[in-house]
């Protein structure tokens, strides 16, 4: 058992993957000598060499596009996009190439690669450094999209994503990189990658989140309990494919659901979860499914970013409103 931050856990997970398979490569801007702007790849180039931990030219489409070529040659590249807002120059490569090689080739070609993207806000950053683009990738057939909310998941999920033969968008809640600390049992059996998880059981209302919002959801449950309401919190973990079985099971018991994410609410993950829960749990619902997320504006300037992010009060308010129908 080792106490780790999310950043350290990702670093340890990457190290394990590099040790376990010679074909695994790490590539991106500043990932080598510097160890990445968030230090996620700290020390890896020193230990595995610059052939396997590769500082790239500053061009995101180039990074992802060359990673595709490396994957076609038999490698398993793990690409770091430095910040969420810089994934867009690579959008064409991800959507038209990474996601489609398998389909285009009628299943003959595999493109096993991981695209790591630090995402989400709350770090007081300048524009393009606080975005939540997950829905754009979930909407793209051929990609798998996962996100971790704690050090233990960070450690295992990054290794599972690298071992996956399909391309995976791996979203890392950058706000938690160096803040969330927890004991990680490196020898513990890993939970399956494609499963959501009940992180706090409850009976009165279900709150679903992922990545950076899970800690807020847990705070909501604690406060609500003081007010006499039992909140069940579910961490989606996998956004594509979605694993909504535990959500359906939960909503059938609670009859109430709030979905929380930092991304803009319109056509965000909450919309998909709400639609599917309505299809599967229609007769169990005591209230409409409510969404708490970013407003339909660009991410605002840092001094006022808290108004954009779903916080304790906005989620609690939504929980309260589910009892008003």
């Amino acid at each position, binding site marked *: 058992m080792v106490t780790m931050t999310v950043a350290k856990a990702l670093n340890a997970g990457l190290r394990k993957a590099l040790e376990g398979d010679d074909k695994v490569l790490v590539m991106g801007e500043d990932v080598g000598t510097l160890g990445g702007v968030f230090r996620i790849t700290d020390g890896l180039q020193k230990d595995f060499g610059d052939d396997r931990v590769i500082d790239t*030219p500053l061009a995101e489409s180039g990074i992802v596009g*060359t990673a595709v070529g*490396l994957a076609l*040659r038999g490698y398993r590249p793990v690409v770091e996009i430095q910040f969420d807002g810089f994934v867009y*120059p690579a959008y064409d490569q991800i959507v038209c190439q990474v996601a489609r090689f398998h389909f285009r*080739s009628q299943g003959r*070609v595999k493109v096993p690669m991981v695209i790591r993207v630090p995402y989400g806000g709350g770090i007081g950053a300048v524009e393009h450094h606080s975005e939540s683009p997950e829905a754009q990738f979930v909407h793209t*057939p051929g990609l798998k999209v996962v996100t971790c909310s704690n050090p233990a998941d960070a450690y295992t999920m990054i290794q599972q994503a690298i071992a996956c033969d399909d391309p995976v968008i791996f979203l890392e809640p950058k706000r938690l990189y160096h803040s969330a600390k927890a004991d990680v049992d490196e020898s513990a059996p890993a939970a399956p990658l494609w499963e959501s998880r009940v992180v706090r059981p409850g009976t009165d209302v279900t709150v679903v989140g992922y990545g950076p919002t899970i800690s807020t959801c847990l705070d909501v449950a604690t406060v609500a309990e003081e007010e006499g309401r039992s909140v069940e919190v579910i961490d989606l973990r996998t956004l594509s494919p979605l694993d909504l079985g535990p959500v359906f099971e939960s909503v059938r018991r609670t009859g109430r659901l709030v979905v929380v994410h930092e991304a803009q609410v319109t056509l965000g993950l909450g919309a998909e979860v709400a639609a599917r829960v309505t299809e599967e749990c229609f007769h169990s619902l005591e209230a409409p499914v409510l969404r708490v997320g970013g407003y339909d504006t660009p991410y605002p300037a840092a001094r006022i970013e808290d108004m954009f992010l779903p916080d304790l009060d906005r989620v609690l308010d939504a929980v309260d409103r589910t009892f008003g129908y």
Partner: protein
Amino acid sequence: MTDPVFGPAPDEDEPELVQLLTPEGERVHHPVFDLDFSADQLRGFYRDMVLVRRVDIEATALQRHGELGLWPQLLGQEAAQIGAGRAMRPQDFAFPTYREHGFAWCRGIDPVRILGLFRGTDQGGWDPKDHNFGLYSIVVGAHSLHATGYAMGVQRDGAVGTGDPERDTAVVACFGDGATSQGDVNESLVFAASYNAPVVFFCQNNQWAISEPLERQTRIPLYRRAHGFGFPGVRVDGNDVLATHAVMQAALQRARDGQGPTFVEAYTYRMGAHTTTDDPTRYRRSADVEQWKAKDPIARLEAHLRAEGLADDAYVAAVAAEADELGERMRRECQELPEPVARDIFDMVHVETPPDLVAQQAAYDAHVASFAEVL
């Protein structure tokens, strides 16, 4: 033109082409890029070009007959593709655009398999690993990065600079003049230069990007772009199969030897339309096309073969007969291409198909079955 402040602009004079065979079929020599071609090689080039031209004509006709939805014509670019394709070794790998029918021919891909993409029976009809030839890239220039990344993999496999002719590997990125404006192509040039990757950028400058002339893409000869990225570029007569072959052989060997990337501009002309949906009479003069007709790649090699006594009427007729057979087979087998199975699309998206897609497939099956019950 010299700017009063910034000095001379890049030299816009048209450079000399590397040429080994004049449009009249006269064998000329080049101080750097010259090769001795055997009779078999010369006849092989001729046969390749005649057959590939027939593939193109036949496919164009199949589109006109409604058998294909679309066909991007190769006409006029046979020498560029055959010269380059035949310079590759089995272990080399090429990443093509959608007009690389001659390259595909050289990599052993049956023309009928190419038709599937344009008939709509598939979106890529071969396994790239079986031929070391990628699937046709429809997004202009995107695959130039894949070629460069693949070449980076070749480096990591230690398959450059060993001196073993069966191991050392070069990669070819094929694209056209229009693609040189794409960010992905420029990024691939940056990456290739940065890592000294064993990739040859083979640019077929056919003068037209649909309706836009070369002047809309560039103010300097394209091969000189390479110099700005830090590696050599050369312009070769793309209608001269011998010169293209010689230059590509040198560039590929340079890559295999670990000396890094090269940009080869094959200067040619798109004699046909961009695709069968295009009408080039709207944007170019027939006089220009006529001028290029005189530079026809097949006619000049035929003239050379005849002058050297390597081909006579009987030989030319025999190759033409072979082309007729190929055309007949394409017409027949195009119609025999198997229809895709609709429910298979759900199985092709992922290696590990997620439950939601399995459920969608089942729902689709049930939907289809519901009509069967009604009938």
